[in-house]
């Protein structure tokens, strides 16, 4: 068996850099390469680096049908989220102090909103429906006269569901509310057309789409003009919106990753959908398995399943030959059940025993078949050891059991 273990099925946590991207990055690192500071006005090293940065900017803009002038380089989607939300909230504070977001957002959005609450802003955290999608009427109702900003992620990192940001954009524009969308998990996987979608701010991450870590961008709409209060001050880079020497190699890597995504997205989605469906078909006939999140409005590479009556930590340990996650990578350190799954209405046990499989560019059929076999085997084995499984098989209604305290 030529399989390299562990099989990597954690593409939503991060992706390997595409070899074509790695090559471009390496060209910008050493003395022989394009190492100049793009802000150096006085020599070819600087001019050369600047040109590469602008080419990359055009590539990023092109993927989402935006103007390159609307792309601001950041160190990643976390920074973009912080900049968008704090930046807009602070700039427009005289207009109002109410913000609307969703309980299933990434921590970068939620924690930033909590920070704003400490500063005196009011935040409404909406519940999604059981399929993870936002009800548009509920969203509309939540908007008030003093609402200045809404933040809704395009694709959720845990369950992969796709929100209708075009519709949200229409609603927000009609109510004069700025719409921020975290597109870290969607860019390069789902079509984004910012000419036609009324989204005002959009966060991008390179390392979710085969680009390098430490690189991201924030789309800031120019028509109509969206203003932000910068969060990092200094040399005035990026039209004063984000100071700091531009990391040529990082930016070039991101540009190349986005260029490849634009060219290969359609074909890649087809291939990955087939692999994901193969995985789903290999597991769905098992008893007591639940797919988390809407199955249709979902990116091709995501499959999030709860295996009832299997203890979560044991399951992860049993599956050590595949690299997957339960809960998002950013919160793996804590043992709390995924707040995203809880927001869908899953109870603690089911949330704990969920596995997120995310497939990608380098996933093979062989890897999927190996995974199916492994998961079926381990889940079966763990259930054999589970007293709760035994009770379930005997027809006992576990909800009605009065558990004695120890």
């Amino acid at each position, binding site marked *: 068996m030529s399989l390299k273990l562990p099989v990597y099925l*954690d593409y939503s946590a991060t992706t390997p850099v595409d070899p074509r991207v790695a090559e471009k990055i390496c060209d910008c690192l050493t003395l022989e390469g394009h190492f100049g500071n793009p802000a150096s006005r006085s020599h070819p090293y600087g001019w050369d680096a600047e040109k590469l940065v602008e080419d990359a900017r055009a590539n990023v803009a092109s993927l989402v049908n935006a103007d390159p002038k609307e792309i601001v380089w950041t160190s990643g989607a*976390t920074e973009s989220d912080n900049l968008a939300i704090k930046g807009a909230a602070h700039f427009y504070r005289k207009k109002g102090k109410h913000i609307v977001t969703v309980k299933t957002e990434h921590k970068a959005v939620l924690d930033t909103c909590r920070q704003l609450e400490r500063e005196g802003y009011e935040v409404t955290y909406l519940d999604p429906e059981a399929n993870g999608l936002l009800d548009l009427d509920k969203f509309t109702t939540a908007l008030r006269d003093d609402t200045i900003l809404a933040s809704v992620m395009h694709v959720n990192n845990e369950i992969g569901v796709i929100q209708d940001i075009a519709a949200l954009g229409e609603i927000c524009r009609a109510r004069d509310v700025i719409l921020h969308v975290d597109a870290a998990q969607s860019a390069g996987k789902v079509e984004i057309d910012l000419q036609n979608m009324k989204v005002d701010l959009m966060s991008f991450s390179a390392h979710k789409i085969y680009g390098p870590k430490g690189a991201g961008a924030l789309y800031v709409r120019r028509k109509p003009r969206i203003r932000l209060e910068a969060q990092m001050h200094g040399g005035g880079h990026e039209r004063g919106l984000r100071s700091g020497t531009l990391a040529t190699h990082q930016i070039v890597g991101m540009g190349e990753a986005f260029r490849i995504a634009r060219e290969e997205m359609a074909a890649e989605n087809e291939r990955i959908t087939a692999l994901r469906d193969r995985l789903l078909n290999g597991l769905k006939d098992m008893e007591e398995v639940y797919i988390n999140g809407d199955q249709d409005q979902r990116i091709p590479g995501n499959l999030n399943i709860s295996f009832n009556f299997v203890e979560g930590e044991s399951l992860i340990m049993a599956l050590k030959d595949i690299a*997957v996650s339960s809960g998002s990578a950013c919160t793996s350190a804590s043992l709390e059940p995924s707040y995203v799954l809880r927001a869908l209405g899953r109870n603690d046990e089911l949330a704990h025993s969920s596995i997120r499989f995310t497939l990608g560019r380098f996933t093979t059929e062989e890897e999927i078949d190996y995974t199916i076999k492994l998961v079926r085997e381990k889940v079966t084995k763990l259930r054999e050891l589970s007293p709760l499984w035994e009770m379930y098989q005997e027809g006992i209604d576990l909800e009605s059991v009065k558990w004695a305290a120890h």
Partner: protein
Amino acid sequence: MLPYLKGRFANPSSAHRLGRVARAGLDRAREQVAALVQVHPTEVIFTSGGTEANNLALAGVLAAEPRPGRLLVSAIEHPSVLEPARRWTRQGWQLDYLPVDGQGRAKLDTLPADVRLISLMLANNETGVIQPVAELAEAARAQGCILHTDAVQAAGKIPVSFAATGARLISLSAHKLYGPKGVGALIVDKALDLLPAQLGGGQERGRRSGTENLPGIVGFGMAAELALAGMEQQARTQLELRRRLEQGLQALPAVTVFGQQAERLPNTVQLSVPGIDGEALLLQLDKAGFAVSSGSACASGKQEPSHVLQAMGVDETTARGAIRISLGKATTATEIDRLLTTLGQLSAWVVKTSGAVAW
């Protein structure tokens, strides 16, 4: 860096084996950076660069204060300290500037009372002048205020540590010591409670969220290790080359070397050639095959003369003539000699064409 752009690509926060391999690389790099500045690894917070480290140093301390007070920064700080400092006045903070003498050294005679935070860079990026940070630290400690030092230009060239500087916050940048751009660090005394600026997944012990830029950080670690090992040797070599350059400059009519009498970084010479505008000189040097700068890259293309030179009391004409030559590991004596020849030619041409009398 390369292995982390290839097989070791996992997210360091992932619980699986690949994540753990990535985490090990992160931990190792943290130790390497900590070793460069002689601190405990937990005192290293990785950032996206020097600008972020400086912004975080100020925000992390000032945002935690219950009431705004007094903030003191030197007049010659990098814009990534000056700009955030100015922003904090909007929150009610009183901003004072520490003046510098004619040689570009901060003057410490009287500190205003009641200062909460002082920021004094360890070495100035334009002149290379090394600042009396350790001296200032004593006064700061006596007053109970926190000292931050921007060691972005100094690290890797001269020893940097809490002990050497007396500072409790130190900013570093990888790309100033042969590491990659896009990564830096804020070194924070473990007894100091820093408020985070960037929020999210809780990385860097909650002090700086965001998936770690692993290849960048690993590159930073290696650069730090190499810098530590080669520091003395490099300093000697570059100082020799710098002296060669300065000696040659003496032969040119009335060239001013800024901060000449002060202790400076071994690699930096900021100078002014009379009668020729700095920007024009840069272009001429570029045509002759030399890449140098006027102020800092961050100020490239700006029309105002350097705020550093202004603070030193340099007149505007002379300040506008300033160029900065900074040497590095690859610089050779031949390159220095060629530069001197070119500068000599340009200077002679100016005198000839303008008829200006060089004083």
